[in-house]
């Protein structure tokens, strides 16, 4: 039973997340019936599941919430901000209930009672049905038919004392009705005769009544108008999601549409709909839940496989045997595919992370009384699940800063000609071998001078320090630095940005700040795509092997040693471009390695050009060995102070190669001089 219960908890967590997302969506658009349906469905599932496990508190609360949404769904109750608030609060409480299902803590019990009373009050508050007829139609929904009526009054209809609007009103009494007026025939103002009816209507009517009852409505105008009543189809077309689109299309048409055209509109829309539904169903079946432990194990096994395969390749290289070679190549191929597949299993869309923030921004902005529009882009961007888990706190912190310090109070925003509503944009996108997560606000921005002054006051930098903008912004990440002059509850305790930076560095990522006073701030977190296995290029410098991630490599060149030695500012001309280079042998301290004397005589050197920010730089290496799949192993705490190498990998012969972080290597070794020449 316990294992089922654990499963229930896991599932309930997912359901609550889905619910939260749906509710937030609903907040944007109260009339979205699809979402209301979804909310109801999720509530219903939750109720059912918790009843099965005899979790009465959960069952009770969800039951009443379900009732509310059932009423809304059926149009018996209006959705209100209050309902949304209480629903969101209930979600929080339900999460709590998952841990403390018997409500042993008195605090939880009190909260439960309070929420329950409020929910029950709301569910009873189902004010009189919005429309008696609607309810009637719904109740007998199975019998409803949808008609399409063309109503073209003759010009002298009005003269006979009939009012077409009354007729349309009568039609509304029969059931759900939508009348689309066509006003194309109205002449210019001078020619208009107020006693002439120029307008015609296309009417959609869903009703349980028959054709004769509809005809009765038109009884008195039969002779003064062209009336066509046609059956569009069985069932209530108003409930179909295709309805809105079809109505829009009908509105857009200049002329009243014929029955055939209207039918077509619905059919086309219907088919699209069905296709999508079918797709959604397929997706449901084609995905399974796997515990992340199992995935981790799988990933480890694949890593070992890759390492072992490297040994096999090496062995084959040394022992020439054609048959063995072909087997080894096949194994290599399969290993690579296995690795890619396993890796992609461990990737999850960043959306999962984003949804959590949506709620946070909503709550915080209310608390601080700041109206904020929160936009998320690139939720489909995929990232290793272990990275995503470690990202929550840093992004949370940055978002808090944005809301608390970044976005100004409304009065101030209006005074500075900004829209009263603040905006925070959270976006994710790929660049090369990296995933970027950008958090932008259109708030006050960060004043570099203020940071500098504060850093000097705090003795973090000398008074005469000459710093560029980027360097100043980097001060934000220095431990003990906090710009908020007033410490608030939400942010500004002075322990923050340095922790953010450290956490991201642990993921082999980096964070950049850009800000303009009065315009806003953008923080970009750059992360490697994966933490475990990377495709790289194996090279040799002196007697050490290095792996350069293939994602950053542009191309390889062979040039004369003399060309490097005679270069100006350590730049070299490749394909007509001047490119700064880093002589790895000198820079990485291999120059004086014993037994290396022979290498000096090399006439030719290899230069690998790699992307660095939006530029290219060259890395000078002794030998290029070839492509290599590297299983990344951390260098460990003993090497925490060095950052040019992101890890190590074990080669086929058991020796170790170092995996280079080219961006950080470039940061370290490119001098001001040769950067200027780029």
């Amino acid at each position, binding site marked *: 039973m316990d294992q089922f219960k654990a499963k229930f908890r896991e599932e309930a967590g997912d359901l609550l997340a889905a619910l939260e997302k749906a509710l937030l969506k609903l907040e944007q658009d109260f009339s979205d019936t699809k979402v209301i349906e979804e909310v109801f469905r999720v509530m219903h599932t939750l109720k059912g599941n918790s009843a099965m496990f005899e979790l009465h508190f959960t069952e009770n609360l969800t039951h009443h919430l379900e009732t509310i949404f059932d009423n809304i769904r059926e149009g018996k109750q209006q959705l209100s901000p209050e309902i949304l608030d209480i629903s969101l609060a209930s979600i929080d409480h339900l999460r709590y209930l998952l841990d403390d299902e018997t409500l042993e803590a008195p605090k939880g019990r009190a909260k439960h009672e309070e929420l329950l009373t409020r929910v029950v009050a709301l569910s009873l508050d189902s004010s009189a049905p919005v429309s008696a007829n609607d309810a009637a139609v719904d109740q007998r929904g199975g019998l409803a038919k949808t008609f399409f009526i063309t109503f073209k009054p003759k010009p002298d209809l009005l003269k006979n004392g009939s009012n077409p609007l009354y007729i349309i009103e009568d039609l509304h009494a029969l059931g759900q009705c939508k009348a689309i007026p066509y006003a194309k025939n109205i002449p210019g103002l001078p020619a208009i005769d107020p006693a002439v009816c120029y307008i015609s209507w296309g009417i959609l009517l869903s009703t349980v009544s028959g054709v004769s009852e509809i005809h009765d409505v038109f009884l008195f105008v039969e002779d003064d108008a062209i009336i066509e009543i046609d059956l569009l189809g069985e069932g209530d077309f108003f409930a179909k999601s295709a309805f809105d689109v079809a109505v829009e299309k009908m509105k857009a048409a200049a002329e009243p549409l014929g029955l055939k055209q209207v039918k077509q509109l619905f059919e086309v829309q219907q088919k699209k709909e069905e296709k999508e539904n079918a797709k959604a169903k397929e997706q449901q079946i084609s995905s399974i839940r796997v515990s992340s432990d199992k995935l981790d194990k799988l990933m480890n096994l694949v890593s070992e496989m890759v390492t072992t395969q490297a040994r096999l390749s090496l062995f084959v290289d040394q022992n020439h045997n054609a048959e063995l070679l072909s087997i080894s190549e096949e194994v290599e191929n399969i290993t690579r595919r296995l690795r890619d597949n396993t890796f992609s299993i461990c990737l999850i869309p960043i959306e999962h992370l984003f949804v959590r923030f949506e709620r946070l921004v909503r709550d915080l902005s209310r608390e601080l009384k700041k109206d904020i529009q929160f936009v998320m882009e690139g939720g489909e961007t995929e990232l290793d699940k272990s990275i995503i888990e470690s990202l929550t706190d840093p992004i949370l912190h940055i978002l808090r800063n944005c809301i608390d310090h970044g976005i100004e109070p409304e009065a101030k925003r209006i005074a500075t000609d900004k829209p009263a509503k603040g905006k925070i944009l959270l976006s994710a996108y790929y660049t090369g071998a990296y995933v970027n997560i950008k958090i932008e606000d259109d708030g006050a921005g960060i004043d570099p001078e203020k940071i500098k002054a504060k850093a000097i006051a705090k003795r973090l930098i000398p008074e005469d320090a000459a710093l560029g903008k980027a360097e100043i912004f980097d001060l934000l990440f220095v431990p003990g630095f906090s710009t908020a002059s007033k410490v608030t509850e939400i942010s500004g305790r002075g322990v923050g940005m340095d922790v953010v930076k450290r956490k991201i560095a642990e993921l082999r990522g980096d964070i950049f700040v850009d800000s303009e006073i009065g315009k806003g701030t953008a923080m970009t977190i750059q992360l490697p795509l994966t933490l475990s296995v990377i495709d790289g290029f194996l090279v040799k410098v002196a007697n050490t092997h290095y792996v350069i991630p293939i994602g950053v490599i542009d191309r390889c060149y062979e040039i004369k040693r003399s060309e490097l030695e005679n270069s100006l500012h350590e730049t070299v001309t490749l394909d007509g471009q001047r490119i700064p280079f880093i002589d790895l042998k000198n820079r990485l301290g291999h120059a004086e390695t014993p037994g290396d004397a022979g290498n000096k005589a090399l006439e030719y050197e290899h230069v690998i050009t790699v992307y660095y920010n939006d530029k290219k730089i060259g890395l000078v290496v002794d030998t290029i060995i070839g492509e290599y799949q590297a299983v990344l192993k951390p260098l460990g705490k003993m090497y925490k102070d060095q950052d040019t190498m992101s890890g*190590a990998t074990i080669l086929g012969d058991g*020796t170790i190669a170092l995996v280079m972080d080219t961006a950080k290597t470039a940061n370290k070794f490119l001098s001001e001089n040769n950067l200027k020449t780029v």
Partner: protein
Amino acid sequence: MENSTISTSSYLTFKLDQESFALHVSKVLEILEVTQITKVPQSPDYMRGVVNLRGNVLPVIDTRAKFGLSSAEFTVDTCIVVLDITSNEGAVTLGALVDSVQEVAEISNDQVQPPPKIGNKYNAEFINGMVKREEGFTMLLDIDKVFTTDEITFLRESGETLPTD
């Protein structure tokens, strides 16, 4: 060693230069032959590099350099002692390069003398005590402390000149 009752513990003794040192066997995981060590750039001199320990990366510390002694060529006796170190940041596994490993010795706590305050060229902070044995004094190392400080101040400042990091 603070205990007043007599108890015996096993210590691994090893040599650096001419001196004999000992560390508690509970800290020792295994002893490896020296293989090819890959030097990691941008690291202190005493960080000799990394080696492959059955598929994992093991950082290797040049104990001579760490203790401020002059470096020596590898001999057949040179080996890597794999240690489990407890630091503030949790457990770390590392390898310590030593000139030669001697033996596992049983040392009872009544044999242990406090390190002399004067005339000792080693920093008492890293030494739990000294034991007189046939071939001279052996120093019992507080190995957690030795390998978790970044400095090379094992030798006393007053004793000999030493390079500071």
